[in-house]
């Protein structure tokens, strides 16, 4: 049979799962989690089949498209439900379904004691479907559907424990911040429509061979579109200034944090930018902004990561910073696209692994998240320790592991941009690498080394750290393997480069510094970073309560005061605005009307006095009236 027709099945499988699990009701509680896992696995299998099919073709013809039906047919406005599977989306499909399936598996154990587990798997499947739709869509509008779909799924999953007000609030916040980004996306689509009359990838972006319409428009328009797309990407990928939701999103169950807020959804922004390469390439100013956003975010996230004592929040900060790397790379243009995606994939592996490890730790520690209450866990949960350790080495870019290949390339590319920008960006990237090494080492030390620091909680039951069940450890192991060898597989011989090049294009910038120097520099800084962390947290015992810390630390603990800013400016301001508007609506707009009514009421009240019921006064008025009539007739005759 024809491979194109399988594409729809990729999405259909998890969608079916979501439908069945959410509509099915309690009678599915027993088997729900297996249904969900199997369907996502099925989707992964289909993905593999398609991948094989693609490998079978030669590089230029590795684009499958499937046109299902015309979605919104309106005069001069064509939006179809059509899918496009090329190397880029293929990469994502494998990442999403693969990691997704693993995390489904993990969740079976993690959510075991939750009576709403079926619902949880339903949401997970819904997320998979939406994410696949996002990466497979053939036009921006359909992409938008997936885009908001993942937003919805993340909203549902962050707020999965809705009885916790904090969770509900976090979910709402995530959705709202994302909505701001979505606004950017929709405006971008409108701009495309007005500029090009279409927003389908094919005609718009074209291919390597024949460039699409994107080049044809004025640079101003293109810059506007690009910036709007960037806004969208910031929202989804938690880039400055829309990053504030990611930290709170950790309220969700840990598998969710691993899948959505580490491996897949948050990288959608990078996908969007890389996908729209044709537009960005034609808008250099926008690209510069992208790189700046990326650089700022990677530092921002790293600094926040250093200060958090909550293990998940620390990892969230690191996610932010890693995505910062990707965005930076994507902003560099053809030099960086491939490495952005590559780092995205490797990051998918090790960050998911790290989160799952964190989850396993929490699982063993009665859901304690404060690292200052951990310590010396390596003996209690060896598998977790090893997998987590490998993930750690991968993320700090330890030579030979996956993170090393991808991140190192990005730093190179940053320098290769050339000029002062090149130096600044490259420097930022290097600094980021150092800080990454620092905070990851800190996490590692605080969690697994040192002496145990946990005490019995208020109602006296001391946590008994233990290794997690098999169903949880297997995914961790798989991911660990991935994070060890992934980089090598991709990086050596530029396999990944050749795989992706036809879509994104690639160009070698002439770097002012040789690749080797960059590599050495990277290694040096990460050693320094690690050493400082060791000096702080490895040599002397970690205090169980956080010291007051420097001003920067305290700011970082509060996400560098960005939330406070939002609260004061947006939330408070918004509340005042709405309250005053409600008042205005009631007094002014409504008041005018009621005022008129009251006026008439008063007037008629006055007039009522005339009706005093005395026949004589009525007679007077009659008499007067007659007199007037006579006067009138006389006047008539006079004139």
């Amino acid at each position, binding site marked *: 049979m024809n491979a194109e027709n399988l594409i729809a099945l990729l999405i259909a499988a998890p969608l079916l799962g979501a439908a069945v699990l959410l509509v099915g009701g309690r009678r599915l509680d027993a088997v729900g989690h297996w249904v969900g896992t199997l369907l996502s696995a099925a989707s992964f299998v289909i993905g593999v089949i398609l991948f094989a099919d693609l490998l079978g073709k030669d590089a230029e013809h590795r684009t499958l498209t499937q046109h299902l039906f015309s979605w919104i047919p309106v005069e001069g406005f064509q939006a179809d439900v059509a899918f496009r599977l090329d190397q880029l989306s293929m990469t994502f499909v494998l990442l999403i379904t693969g990691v997704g399936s693993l995390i489904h598996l993990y969740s079976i154990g993690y959510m075991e004691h939750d009576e709403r587990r079926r619902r949880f798997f339903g949401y997970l499947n819904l997320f998979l479907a939406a994410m696949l739709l996002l990466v497979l869509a053939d036009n921006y509008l359909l992409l938008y559907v997936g885009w908001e779909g993942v937003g919805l799924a993340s909203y549902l999953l962050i707020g999965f424990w809705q009885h916790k007000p904090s969770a509900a609030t976090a979910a709402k916040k995530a959705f709202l911040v994302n909505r701001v980004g979505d606004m950017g996306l929709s405006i971008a689509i409108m701009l495309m429509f007005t500029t090009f009359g279409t927003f389908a990838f094919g005609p718009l972006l074209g291919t390597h061979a024949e460039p699409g319409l994107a080049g044809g428009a004025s640079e101003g328009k293109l810059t506007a579109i690009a910036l709007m797309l960037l806004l969208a990407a910031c929202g989804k990928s938690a880039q400055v200034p829309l990053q504030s939701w990611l930290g709170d999103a950790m309220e969700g169950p840990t598998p969710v944090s691993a899948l959505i807020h580490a491996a897949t959804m948050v990288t959608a922004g990078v996908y969007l930018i890389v996908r729209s390469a044709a537009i960005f390439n034609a808008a250099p100013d926008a690209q510069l902004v992208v790189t700046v956003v990326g650089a700022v975010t990677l530092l921002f996230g790293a600094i926040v990561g250093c200060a958090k004592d909550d293990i998940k929040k620390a990892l969230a900060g690191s996610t932010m910073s890693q995505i910062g790397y990707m965005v930076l790379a994507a902003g560099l243009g053809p030099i960086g696209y491939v490495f952005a995606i590559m780092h995205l994939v490797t990051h998918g592996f090790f960050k998911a692994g790290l989160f799952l490890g964190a989850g396993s730790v929490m699982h063993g520690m009665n859901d304690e998240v404060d690292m200052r209450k951990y310590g010396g866990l390596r003996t209690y949960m060896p598998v977790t320790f090893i997998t987590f350790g490998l993930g750690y080495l991968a993320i700090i870019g330890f030579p030979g592991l996956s993170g090393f290949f991808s991140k190192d390339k990005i730093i190179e590319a940053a320098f290769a941009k050339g000029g002062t920008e090149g130096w600044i960006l490259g420097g930022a990237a290097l600094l980021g690498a150092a800080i990454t090494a620092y905070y990851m080492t800190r996490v590692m030390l605080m969690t697994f080394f040192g002496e145990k620091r946990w005490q019995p909680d208020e109602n006296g039951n001391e946590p008994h750290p233990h290794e997690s069940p098999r169903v949880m450890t297997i995914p961790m192991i798989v991911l660990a393997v991935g994070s060890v060898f992934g980089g090598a597989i991709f990086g050596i011989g530029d396999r990944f480069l050749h795989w992706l090049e036809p879509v994104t294009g690639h160009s070698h910038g002439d770097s002012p510094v040789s690749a080797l120097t960059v590599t050495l520099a990277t290694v040096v800084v990460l050693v320094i970073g690690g050493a400082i962390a060791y000096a702080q947290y490895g040599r002397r015992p970690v205090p169980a309560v956080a010291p007051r810390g420097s001003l920067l630390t305290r700011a970082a603990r509060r996400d560098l005061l960005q939330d406070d800013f939002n609260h004061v400016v947006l939330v408070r301001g918004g509340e005042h605005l709405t309250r005053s508007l409600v008042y205005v609506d009631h007094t002014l707009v409504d008041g005018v009307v009621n005022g008129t009514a009251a006026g008439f009421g008063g007037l008629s009240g006055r007039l009522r006095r005339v009706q005093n019921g005395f026949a*004589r006064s009525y007679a*007077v008025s009659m008499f007067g009236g007659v007199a007037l009539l006579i006067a009138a007739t006389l006047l008539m005759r006079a004139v």
Partner: protein
Amino acid sequence: MTAPLAAYTTSTGEAFQFWVLGTVAVLGALGTVFMRRAVHSALCLAGTMIVLAVFYLANGAYFLGIVQIVVYTGAIMMLFLFVVMLVGVTAADSLKETIKGQRWLALLCGAGFGILLFAGIANASLKQFNGTGRANANGNVEGLAALIFTKYVFAFEITGALLITAAVGAMVLTHRERTERPRTQRELAEQRVREGVHLPPLPAPGVYARHNAVDIAGLLPDGTPSELTVNKTLRERGQVRDVSTEALNDLRALERRAEERLERTEIEPSIAKRPEEASK
């Protein structure tokens, strides 16, 4: 006297009559409005109507003139008087106005209305007067009769119906339906005993042999007048005359005469007036 009536201007006789009687008529009308007692108003109105009757005659409406006197002054005004009697001859309503501004408004409207009316008549072209001479050629009554029974016969019939309806209506309105059996003397007596108020028949009005009018309260032994003696209706209308002062005056007069007869020197001037003066 038909000939001069055809003229544009009337005979001086009629003019004189008009000015004299016209004044009377207006005075009567004013009296009707401004007399405080209904009776007086009625009398004034009657006067005005008679004057009008005369004017009808003067205008050659002989039949109407007579009818005016007979029907209006004779019947209608009498009817009025009856009602006045029923309602109270001397129930003098104060001319004090209760509704604020009513009087002034009324006068204003009246004045304005009158002026306008006069203006209207003034600039109406009423030049030629062809009096009723030819119309009354073979008798005014015959003329009227001819018209009534030919041209206006239908209206005439209708008015007949109207009169009957009015009569019936008046009866219906004034007739009081007896709801319970009239009580016999016996029952009344028993009721009086039961209620215990004034068992014997009511005392007669009037005092001494002098004042035996029905509207004078008889005096009790201590000399205080007793309302009981006066007719209930009169009492309601508040028309009980008080003669106690007169009685005192008469007493004094008696003493004085007695002293004159006995040639008492010191004569104090009388404090009270003589009865005949008092009654003035």
